[in-house]
């Protein structure tokens, strides 16, 4: 399966979707000019990955900032992972947030309330 590697910028996150090495992550800041087209490749990749996923799928979110428009796209990604989980796959979401950033921790909690998929909150020194 094709690997996606997108370098992070000041307004878009770093994205790694590497099934072979089992690295799935979105990290950094997310306020792209056009959220839909920015996240489209991620959703397409997940749709393909879903057909033949690894034995275990761990998806890491390590965002430091995202705007409200991005919040919907993140939900779309989480719902895709939820779908995989509902289909009997072993899926885990890891939501990393700086320990001094309450809002980012809370955002993770809220997503875990919305989607029904194993969800782990991981705080790291800010």
């Amino acid at each position, binding site marked *: 399966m094709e690997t996606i590697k997108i370098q992070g910028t000041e307004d878009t996150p770093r994205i790694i979707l590497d099934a072979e090495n089992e690295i799935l992550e979105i990290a950094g800041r997310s306020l792209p000019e056009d959220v839909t087209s920015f996240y489209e490749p991620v959703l397409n990749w997940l749709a393909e990955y879903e057909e033949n996923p690894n034995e275990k799928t761990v998806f890491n979110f390590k965002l430091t900032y995202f705007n*409200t428009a991005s919040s*919907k796209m993140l939900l779309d990604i989480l719902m895709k992972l939820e779908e995989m989980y509902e289909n009997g796959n072993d899926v885990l979401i890891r939501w990393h947030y700086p320990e001094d*950033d309450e809002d980012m921790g809370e955002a993770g909690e*809220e997503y875990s309330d919305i989607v029904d998929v194993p969800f782990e909150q991981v705080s790291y020194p800010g």
Partner: protein
Amino acid sequence: MNERKDMKGFLEFVYEFYKSMKAHEITLVYEGEITHQITKAFTSLTESSMAKEAEAGTVQRKVFHVMVECLQNISKHADDFTTENYLFSGRGIFLVSKGDDEYSVTTGNAVDNDRIEELTDILQTINKMDKEELKQLYKIQMKEGRLSNKGGAGLGFIDIKRKTGKELEYHFLPISDDTSFFLLTSTIPRDFK
């Protein structure tokens, strides 16, 4: 001779303008088209000045959030206008001020009069809600508005109220029979730890 007099008048105006900015503790003011590039430039400018002044991390993040949502409100809703209002599309005024106790972010842009009711409704509803209600509303809007590219009705407003804990102040002033100037101020207290 007249030209010279006009120039002097203009320069005096600039000084008055400067004094007025100082009096209102305005640190950034902009009028014009609000694009993604402008949004990036202003947020990074404000970020570096806050970092230089050693503002608390939480306050910095909240100011950043509010600025982005306010600027994107204007830049994303540019196409809400009919052609005769194209001059206003995506344009507006943007101000940041810094007081001893709080930052405030103000935007002003033209809106069609028939949007006033909708905007007032949303803002009144959000202003009345407590933390838990806002959280539930945000979740609902996020789920239901997933297909819209614009950020959904009021998602940005909800986020501002949640992040700042302060009511959003707003005001409409008439421009013409069809349009009004919509002013919105968000306040970010500087005592977040």
